């Protein structure tokens, strides 16, 4: 799959113990890698840290060298208006296509809202979003 709109997200396995998240932040920070967005999904045993960075491959190697279990996952990063109803409009598009969202996380600032989504059918989701002119970040737009 080759598409500018596909963003490589870092997924890092973390044990539920003090200091693990900071260890990741330190390693990335020390190498000058900025975290654009991240979320932590957890259960009683462990967590999965999901991070969007500018250089995912370099970050992955760095973390692997530091003995983290880390993989790259394809996600889509939506850029939509920071106003009532805009999320619902996008979700409706995906819903119509029968696309299921495994997880998502978001942040908004000023006029824009950025939403990272992991759909079950990535290519179909991308096509549907493009057809409907939904704004998306390209991988080289990640700072």
């Amino acid at each position: 799959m080759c598409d500018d709109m596909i963003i490589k997200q870092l997924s890092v396995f973390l044990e539920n113990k003090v200091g693990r998240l900071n260890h990741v932040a330190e390693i990335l920070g020390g190498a000058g890698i900025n975290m654009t967005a991240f979320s932590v999904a957890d259960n009683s045993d462990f967590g999965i840290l999901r991070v969007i960075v500018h250089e995912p491959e370099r970050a992955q190697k760095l973390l692997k060298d530091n003995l983290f279990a880390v993989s790259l996952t394809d996600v889509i990063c939506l850029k939509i208006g920071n106003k009532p109803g805009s999320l619902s409009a996008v979700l409706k598009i995906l819903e119509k296509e029968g696309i299921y969202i495994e997880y998502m996380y978001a942040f908004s600032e000023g006029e824009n809202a950025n939403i990272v989504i992991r759909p079950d059918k990535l290519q179909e989701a991308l096509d549907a979003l493009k057809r409907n002119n939904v704004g998306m970040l390209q991988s080289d737009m990640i700072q």
Partner: protein
Amino acid sequence: MIWNETVECMSREEMRKLQSLRLRRVVERVYHNCEPYRKRMQEAGVTPEDIKDIKDIVKLPFSSKKDLRDYYPFGLLSAPMSEIVRVHASSGTTGKPIVVGLTNNDLAVWKEAGARCLTAFGLGKNDIVQVSYGYGLFTGGLGAHAAVENIGATVVPMSSGNTQKQIMMMRDLGVKALAATPSYAMYLAEAMEASPYKREEFNLRVGVFGAEPWTEAMRKEIEEKMGVKAYDIYGLTEVMGPGVGFECECQCGTHLNEDHFFPEIIDPETGEPLPEGEKGELVFTTLTKEGMPMIRFRTRDLTALHYERCSCGRTLVRMDKIMGRCDDMLIVRGVNVFPSQIESVICELPEFEPFFFITVDRVNNTDTFEIKVEVKQEYYTDDIKSMLELKKKITHKIQSVVGIQPDIKLVEPRSIERSEGKTKRYLDKRVFAN
């Protein structure tokens, strides 16, 4: 009260004579009826003629749990199948259990031994005893059951499980004694407190607890919660089952029924016998067993023996509380767990690194059983659901081999210690010392 005063209060000299006579007989039996024993004696250059006195026992080679596995299931029988009337089994290291065969006479010895225990606990024919050990291959249920019948008391054969019914029966029938593992007794005690019944509605006075190590603190807690006096009943499947030993009312050690089960204490490193009172590995020889006699069976349990007469009047040797084990077997919730079992399961699963670390603890009087495992790099995923599936898979696999459910913790790569050789692969945080 004493069930068999003749034997239980016998002078040391008479006991030595009885043991000597029985040792000669059992050695004859295994030598002539059991190939592996005969071979081993021949290798050691010993014949039955060399065994005249119980002191000669040191000339005999040891046996171990490994022999029971190697000759699984019936290789160590010293009686023909036509005389074997029952088998029992306990968990082994590779999923194969250890099987023992018993003759009618073995069952008679067992219930005699059990009757001595229950009588020492103050029970008699007017009492009702609820047996809440599991019935089946485990020796606990049927062993305790026969003992209760032998003293003429009334047995309520509940087996384990179905807690509400357990409590109802105890209350409705006026059960005086509960026979169970201490951890199950603790569980029942808590369920009794939570039940709508008041403590006065129960007639419970005696706890017959065994099959797993327990602490003084646990004894006190069960005694307080249930309003019973709690006694230890000792046994192991290879030797017989519950009834090998028991506490008397003095509760100053566990009396061993040494006319049937002869104990020795040896140095676990050298195999040499240790002087009285010194701590070492406990070794048993079954002096009267027919089906599957064990000669100098190494229990791997560490304890010490004391021979002075007890203030209860018994002369039967007393054993200290088991102070640990000299191999890496763990007893968790009454089940034997070997780290090698866990290893074999993990090595079979391609998703996991062949490393693990077991932590056993006791929380609220129940054993916890945590195993840390590392998922291989390529199997870590972004998806929590599939990670939890992996966890479920290994949990089931280990449970099916070991018999109890582990609490699996997925940990980060290389966080489990790697050094080869004598790496300790478990930590037992439970404290059994008084």
